[in-house]
Every structure is written in structure tokens, then in C-alpha cells.
């Protein structure tokens, strides 16, 4: 690990310019050990008063330092936003969920094994260097929204559920503002090293959930082992029925793109329709129309199709296929 200066912040006004923020440290310290990241200074924000979950209007304000384990177990989250509890519980390990924070989880790097290996070319680690993943081992790389510069996938689960819940990110610092989670994470384009909308001096202070919409909440994660593994594909679904028809549908997808993926056209197709296999197949067709495989990750295209359809059958109460 490269040397750094260390400062423990006592307030939001006590963040040295240019310092890298550390809270749970579960991704940052790992990357610093690999010297993939080498910040010259760290500022520890864990003593700031940002660790509360509070009502905000009809919704919820989740402080940036609320731990993943506390958030997953929070009574209001379990009751009103169970897709979020399920996504959090599907991620990492018990130890890591006790360490990882809400803000830090959003800031985990979109990454792939080539990003971690400093002998390999990576536009994310070294802009302009090229991408060794393209043409390499691509089992868990992106099938949607990738670019010729980067095919890494966003590995988190929490943000996939937050995307389906239309969460916003509250940002403090010199330019306080809120931005939709949809705009927080970036697609790679030709600047894959720019992963979020944060500007220098910004700090995430909270995540805001709008009023609960009810309905059926599902988080279905498919992975190579039963626990403590990143998603190959995942689906966060919030679906409300209106009689025998789908009243509202929000669907977000993990493991398939550089950011939590969502396709409004899929949701428009489903809304107002009677659930059927034909409808769900059409939804999958729309979702996967822009999908592009890179060798070994070809399997993710049919896997995402089947996972979406299975999740829709489950959430709309259709009998599971035998």
C-alpha cells in the first residue's frame, strides 16, 4: 500500500481539499492494497453524524453512514421497501455488511479482474491505455451499455434495488443538491474512469427514498455460488397489480452493465397488461434488443431473459413453470 496522510473529520466542514473519503473502507482499502488506487490523503468520516434512518415526507432519508446490515434490518425498510432489504442481504458477507456504508456502497468501483491486475491495460485505471478485457476472459462482463473502452460491470446489489425504487442521492459540500440515482452512475463511453456524477468537493450525505408504492418486491440474484458472490445477473422488481392487470412495474438489473440498468420501454410495455408468458417474452425481447456479448459472457443474454421472466411470473402471481 502506498503511503498517505490521514485525517479524522469532525464535521462536514472539516474535509481537506483533495482528500479521498473513507468510511467502511471495504472496497477502497482492498484497492489500495493492490495499489490500484493510491490516494495521497485519506479523510475518515466515520465519526460524522450521518448514520440515521429518518422519515422524510412519506419517504425515507438514509444517512450516508448507515451500515448495510442496519439498513437491511431496519423495520421501515423491511416493511415498505423489502426489495432493498433483499438486495442488501444478497450482497457481500455478514462481516462486510457490518462495515460497508450506504454512501460507500454507491461509491464502490465498477470493476473487473483486469482493473485489479496492474500488468493489464485498463482505461479505467489508466485512461487511454486500452482494455485488456475485450478479447480476454469475459465471463462476468457487461452485455448492455458497454463501450469499446470498457466492458466492466457494476458489481453492487443495493444500488440495483435503489434504482428500481427511484432513489435520489443527497450531496453535500460546496454545491449541495440532490440527483436521481439514475444519473449518479455513468455508462463508460470514452471516459470509463469517470464512474459517478460527483464533482471535487462533493460528499454523499444521504440517500432519499420516495413514498413507498407497495406492490410485490423481489430481488432475484443469479450467481456462481449460493452466497458471497457477485451477480452474474440480478433483477430488482417492484410490481403492483391493478385487478388482473399490472398497475405499475419498476425493474432494475444488476451484473449486466457499467451501472444499474433500467429500461423504461420494458416497464411501459408491462403496465396495464394482463400477465402472460407472451407478454413477458416480449418484455425480455425489448430489454435485450441492445444486448451485445463479448465472447464468454454470451450466456448472460439468455440468462437475463430467463431471470426476468421468472421474476415477472413470481411477482405477478403466475404459477411458476414446472
Amino acid at each position: 500500500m502506498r503511503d498517505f496522510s490521514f485525517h479524522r473529520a469532525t464535521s462536514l466542514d472539516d474535509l481537506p481539499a483533495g482528500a479521498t473519503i473513507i468510511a467502511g473502507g471495504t472496497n477502497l482499502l482492498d484497492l489500495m492494497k493492490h495499489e490500484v488506487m493510491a490516494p495521497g490523503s485519506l479523510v475518515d468520516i466515520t465519526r460524522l453524524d450521518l448514520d440515521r434512518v429518518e422519515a422524510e415526507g412519506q419517504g425515507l432519508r438514509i444517512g450516508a453512514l448507515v451500515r448495510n446490515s442496519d439498513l437491511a434490518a431496519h423495520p421501515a425498510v423491511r416493511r415498505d421497501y423489502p426489495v432493498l432489504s433483499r438486495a442488501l442481504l444478497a450482497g457481500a458477507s455478514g462481516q462486510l455488511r457490518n462495515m460497508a456504508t450506504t454512501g460507500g456502497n454507491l461509491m464502490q468501483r465498477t470493476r473487473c479482474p483486469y482493473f485489479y491486475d496492474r500488468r493489464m491495460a485498463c482505461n479505467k485505471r489508466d485512461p487511454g491505455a486500452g482494455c485488456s478485457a475485450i478479447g480476454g476472459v469475459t465471463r462476468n462482463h457487461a452485455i448492455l451499455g458497454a463501450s469499446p473502452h470498457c466492458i466492466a460491470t457494476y458489481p453492487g446489489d443495493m444500488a440495483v434495488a435503489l434504482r428500481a425504487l427511484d432513489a435520489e442521492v443527497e450531496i453535500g459540500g460546496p454545491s449541495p443538491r440532490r440527483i436521481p440515482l439514475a444519473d449518479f452512475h455513468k455508462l463508460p463511453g470514452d471516459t470509463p474512469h469517470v464512474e459517478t456524477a460527483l464533482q471535487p468537493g462533493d460528499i454523499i450525505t444521504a440517500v432519499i427514498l420516495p413514498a413507498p408504492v407497495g406492490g410485490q418486491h423481489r430481488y432475484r440474484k443469479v450467481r456462481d455460488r449460493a452466497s458471497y458472490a457477485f451477480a452474474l445477473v440480478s433483477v430488482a422488481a417492484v410490481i403492483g397489480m391493478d385487478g388482473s392487470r399490472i398497475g405499475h412495474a419498476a425493474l432494475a438489473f444488476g451484473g449486466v452493465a457499467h451501472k444499474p440498468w433500467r429500461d423504461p420501454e420494458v416497464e411501459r410495455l408491462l403496465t396495464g397488461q394482463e400477465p402472460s408468458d407472451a407478454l413477458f417474452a416480449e418484455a425480455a425481447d425489448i430489454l435485450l434488443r441492445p444486448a451485445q456479448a463479448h465472447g464468454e459472457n454470451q450466456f448472460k443474454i439468455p440468462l437475463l431473459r430467463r431471470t426476468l421472466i421468472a421474476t415477472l411470473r413470481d411477482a405477478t402471481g403466475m404459477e411458476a413453470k414446472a
Partner: protein
Amino acid sequence: MQITLNLNGTSHHLDVDPRTTLLDALRHHLGLTGTKKGCDHGQCGSCTVLMDGRRVNACLTLACMVEDRDITTIEGIGTPGHLSPLQQQFLDHDGFQCGYCTPGQICSAAGMLEEIAAGWPSHASESLDGPFELSHAEIAERMSGNLCRCAAYTNIVAAIRQAAQGDNRREDAA
């Protein structure tokens, strides 16, 4: 930099490089080698300790960030003459072969049982609101942050289940 660690009920003053992880502070600065270094990247769980009662990976924790926290290592869980119920059950059930992962397994299990007592759900829970039975699936899921390369998992699960039941007798083999 000068730091103070509250460790197993005692304060320790240390002079550490900011890069020092809690794991290295425990092993190299304090000579407490019960906490093990396996992967050093948060994947194997052999460095698991309790911080303010919660299980965490000491390898992904900077020592300078955990001043004022109450840290419990395997040395604080029990001693050779006074084993904790979990330690006794790991012995009784052969919950190990080489034993390298065992301190982390036991600290993790201690934290995990507190999480169940607090009513926390897991990925394996049918309902987010419980009740949470100590089924094989629940224990396996909740302990997935601890690897055992000897694959003593079956006996680890049995040891944890027995310790949780507060019963120090060994289950009859079915």
C-alpha cells in the same frame, strides 16, 4: 501516529503507520496472533473480530480508524482454562482440521448469533420478519464470509447450532 486501541477490555497505546490494518496491529504490534491472516482482502474471514459487538474483517480496517471502539479478539472470547460455549462446541464437534480459520469462525459465529438474537434477517430467510430458525441453510448463509479450506463445514454448523441451543452435550450422530 499515536493511537489507543480498546482491546479485550484493556487500553493499548500504539505508534503505528497510518497504513497499519487492525489485523497487523493485533498480530505484529500487540503479539495477539490468535487473529489469523488468510487472504488479507476480506474474502476468507479468518481475521474476523468483534467491534462494538459486531463482526468485522480486521484486514480491511485501518487501526487508526477504530480508536474508541471496543474490540474483541479470540483471546477475549475465551482462554484455555475457560472456553466459551462456542469454543467448547467446536472442540466437541471437531469443527476444524488445521484450525487456521477457527478463531475467525468462532468470532464470526459469536457475532452472527447476536444478529439472529437482534432479529436480523438473512438472504436465506423465508420472511424478512422471521422467525429465524438455526437451520443449516440459515447458518451456511450467515457464515458465508468464513471459508474453511479443510471443509469442516458440516461440523462447524453442528457446533454453532449446539452452542446456540445452550446445550453443551454432543448431539448423537443420526
